[in-house]
């Protein structure tokens, strides 16, 4: 009778471990997916900002155009912020 009970307990421990591991894997998967989505979203935002900033390049003085193009390409969000105006609450 004793070994059977022990065996039964072991089963429970095993089930709990499998459940815990599954939950952890599920969580990790979701986290990775979220990270991936975030990276894609960030790249899309960067591309949109780069495009918006490039539209303004024509207005930049000739002497600054080259460096504007390089720096705005590397940090489009920063330059978009520098160009935006009329900040107000939504």
């Amino acid at each position, binding site marked *: 009778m004793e070994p059977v009970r022990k065996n039964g307990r072991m089963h429970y421990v095993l089930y709990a471990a499998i459940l815990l591991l599954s939950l952890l894997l599920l969580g990790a998967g979701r986290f990775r997916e979220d990270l991936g989505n975030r990276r894609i979203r960030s790249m899309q935002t960067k591309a949109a900002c780069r495009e918006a900033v490039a539209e303004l390049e024509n207005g930049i003085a000739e002497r600054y155009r080259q460096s504007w193009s390089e720096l705005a390409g590397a940090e489009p969000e920063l330059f978009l912020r520098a160009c935006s105006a009329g900040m107000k609450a*939504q």
Partner: protein
Amino acid sequence: MAAGGFKLKTLTILSFLLIWAVVAAAHVFYYAVAKREESLAETRRIAWREAEIPALRGKILDRNGVPAAWTELCHDFILERVPESPRRRETLRRRMARFFSAEVSWTAKMPLLLKNSLSPEEIVLYAREFRFFPEVRIVPVIRRVVTGPPEIRERIGKTARNNAGEIVGISGLERKYDMELSGRAGRVIVMLDRNGNWCNETLRITRRAENGKDITADFLLPAGTDASVERLENAEN
């Protein structure tokens, strides 16, 4: 008796913990369910901002395609308001002293221009160095530059800002072709952090800016007119 006292103490502590848990759960329920929409609206109001991306007004070209009027975009660095706390004011003063030789007067009329016509390198530098100071800001300055002899300048006409802050033609070709020359400003929404910095992950361009169209006029700029020289002179002024 001792066992009874211990039981009573345990019961008191457990009751206290139970009440605390119920109150905490009620609070979570209140904010997460009952007041959810109201709280979200309040968060949006506090953190979300909408800004305009300027559109460039189109150029006026002469018959040979040489620009006679165009829009120039430059950036100024300004102090918008004085920090309230004396400690913060001192920190900002020390930070500014590293970049500007002149001492900033806190009693001066705001906004105070710290530096005009920033180069792209300066934009990056100041944006990074002053990112924890929402009191100072890099702002875009848009101006219309016109070149050529007086009679051509007169034909081109003048522009002015309307109530919405947009540049509109008020005379000459600027007025006649205002529809074509005017662009449409874009829009961006973004969440701000407690320092007023943009949280770039939340940034969304909700409307793309559309620059105005260039128009070709029937006049001819004199051969000696060098638009690039004129541009530099105007930028320096």
